[in-house]
């Protein structure tokens, strides 16, 4: 086996490893947002308490949608490893749709809050809420855009090692966002109802 193939084995190894390191820095960033939320969640400045604000049913729906999208993403990757272009594209499209639905639900919640006067400017607690949940939403948006690019790459280049390596990273990113959402659902919405 010639040197370049060995190199390439090392190469793909380092891409995935490097992406994991980036993901860990993203996790640290989210941790800081969680910490800020924990410090500021009670600072409602006379506004409504958290349990009065959050619609748990909506949050649960968002959770189920996002969890399902992780599932479809997993199916897309299985298809990609088997070289099945059509299936991979379809499952990524499904993931995209579910992710977009999640985003829609979230935006609807944000606008409902704002319409009732619970804007991010109203108090530190709401600033922290909108920023934590909103940053997750921004990451989802970036993931959705990445998914469109990935689908285009599958159509244009097929499921070559070059493309599959990128799909691996996209799916890791998507699952990571799902995990972060579980934390948001628990710490923000569920605990907000108990406190």
């Amino acid at each position, binding site marked *: 086996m010639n*040197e370049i193939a060995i190199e390439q084995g090392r190469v793909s190894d380092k891409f995935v490893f490097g992406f994991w390191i980036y993901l860990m820095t993203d996790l640290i960033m989210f941790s800081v947002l969680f910490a800020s939320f924990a410090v500021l969640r009670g600072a409602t400045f006379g506004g409504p308490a958290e349990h009065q604000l959050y619609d748990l049913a909506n949050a649960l729906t968002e959770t189920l949608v996002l969890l399902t999208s992780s599932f479809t993403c997993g199916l897309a990757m299985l298809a990609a490893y088997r070289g099945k272009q059509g299936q991979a594209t379809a499952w990524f499209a499904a993931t995209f749709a579910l992710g977009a639905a999640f985003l829609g639900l979230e935006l609807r919640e944000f606008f409902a809050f704002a319409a009732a006067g619970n804007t991010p400017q109203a108090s530190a*607690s709401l600033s922290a809420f909108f920023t934590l949940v909103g940053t997750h939403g921004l990451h989802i948006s970036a993931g959705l855009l990445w998914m469109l690019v990935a689908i285009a790459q599958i159509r244009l280049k097929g499921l070559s090692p070059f493309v599959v390596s990128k799909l691996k990273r996209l799916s890791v990113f998507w699952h990571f966002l799902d995990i972060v959402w579980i934390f948001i659902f628990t710490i923000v919405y569920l605990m907000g109802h108990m406190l």
Partner: protein
Amino acid sequence: MTHLLFGNLTLADLPHKWFTVGATGSIIAGGIAIAALLTYLKRWKWLWSEWLTSTDPKKIGIMYIVMAALMFFRGGLDALMIWLQQALGSGALPGFLGAAHGYLDASHFQQIFTAHGDIMVFFGTMGFLFGLMNLVVPLQIGARDLAFPFLNSLGFWLFAAGAVLINMFFVIGGDFAASGWLSLPPLSGPEYSPGAGMDYWGWSLQISGLGSLLSGINFLVTILKMRAPGMTLMKMPLFTWTSLCSSVLVVSVFPVLTVAIALLWLDRFFGMRFFTSGFGGNPMMYVNLIWIWGHPEVYILVLPSFGVFSEVVATFSHKRLFGYVSQVFAALGVSSIACLVWVHHFFTMGAGADVNAVFGISTMLIAIPSAVQVFNWIATMHRGRIVFATPMYWFLGFVSLFMFGGMAGVLLATPAADYQLHNTLFLIAHFHTMVVGVGLFGIFAGITYWFPKVFGFTLSEKWGKRAFWLWLTGFFTAFTPLYILGSMGAARRVDSYAAATGFQPLYATALAGGLLIAAAFLTQIVQVVVSILERKQNLAGGDPWDARTLEWATPSPVPFYSFASTPEVRSRDAWWEMKKDGTANAPKKYEDIELCKNTGMAIYLSGCVFLLGFALVWHILWLGVLGLAGAIVCVIVRSFDEHTEYVVTAAEVEKLEKERLGRSPS
């Protein structure tokens, strides 16, 4: 209509004050001079294809160092202005140039020390460090490039974009942030600092911080995944170890800086309430976040210097480093403890005796690995055969300053003492002792030590030693008065003071020291110029110092493929062992080499990010959308590019090697 087009920009933001006109003038003049030179020498294409678009860490390293030196010059000018203002700021003296005291009005003075701190930390020191790491780390581990060459280029260009943005206010805006290098709220919030200057601060740091984060990831993966066969972690040179520790710190704490600045920006741009005085905001949270980043940051700045000195002392003592394992654990210990000490920056914020004492003790613990390192260096010199080249002078100066600055640090680490020392000039003297005496002296030693490797000739020893003595005496003259002033109750960041305090003679002495340091800097420029003129007399082979680590196994200057064949490592001090057992000049087995192509994409991407930053500073919506869209397009286009690498075949390598050996047997 004008608001849609120009955001908050007005004609009043064009240069009209003496220093903005002066700075803009010199930037334009400098730019024209460089453009004229390039045109006359017909070197535009060369500059673009050989340097700016390069992904070669050896070139990127040099670009970092050049940029950092320029930023150091700017930061140094700021320092001279600070020294001058404080020497003239006594109430007994008249004011000049319209200022009530000294020659700068309070707001301008505050902008200058804010800029001084940010530029020295983010662009001066970080730039030098990433430069040295790019030049040295791949060679020390036997790799030809970093793990992600494009990302390396991107990290540099984001750094450059941040550097341009932090200087942008001279040309457009006229004011910088005036709230200290970390700009604590509520002072830095929308209510008390409504201008664009604060936003220049935020976005230049945010953009260069992103570049640093990407570089940190890059070095981390490189060191962990791309070492030559046989080089286990415990066989790595110490400079690589400390670069690894720095990279781990970068990767761990720069996200915290990103969040802290982002939340402040949300307050300023969207009127959110994170750090406001009312509405439930909590400025103390910013203080915590920024120092959770800030303290590890200063260790990021000095750790590589520890590594440099481990290399320098061992090499110039012609001896194995004493206590290699201890040195590694000391570096690891310093890095870990660094993340657990941040409250010591605000003992006086009122956290309580228990919290303060815990953090005080954790801070003191860092003195242990620090002292161990000093002992190990002395033990390395013991029974060595020491040659006192310039890097060893820097070492002796460094240890002296390190010990005194460290003592001051232990005092500051004691809350009860810190209550009397916090925010005084004693604190300023302490941290300058550390960043200059440890950080900067290490950088100077490293540059002197590795210069021949990069350029093929050594720097002038005579001028190097002159520069050293000027730096050392200048530093003592400039900062001993500050230790004394702090003991006299002088607060930091003060632009004027009553004559009765008796501060003025000490400030004047500090200014004299500052002038010595300025002379030192000029001497270093002379050193470079003289060295270039005398280079034929000072040609260096691959191993001018009779050194120990793998980078000296390559010729000087290093060919673009670094190693003709991947070295195999069997022990620490790999090159020294190779020289001892005779494998140093063994015939090489040539192999195909894959390297990353040059690309301008990093420049385009960073340019778009720069536009985005500028647009956010001035609230210009269309420009921001354009910048963001451009950046996204660049990323997408790059991700479609499958042909980012090129191959140098074994035969070509062999040919190049034979040519090189024909030119100069090394």
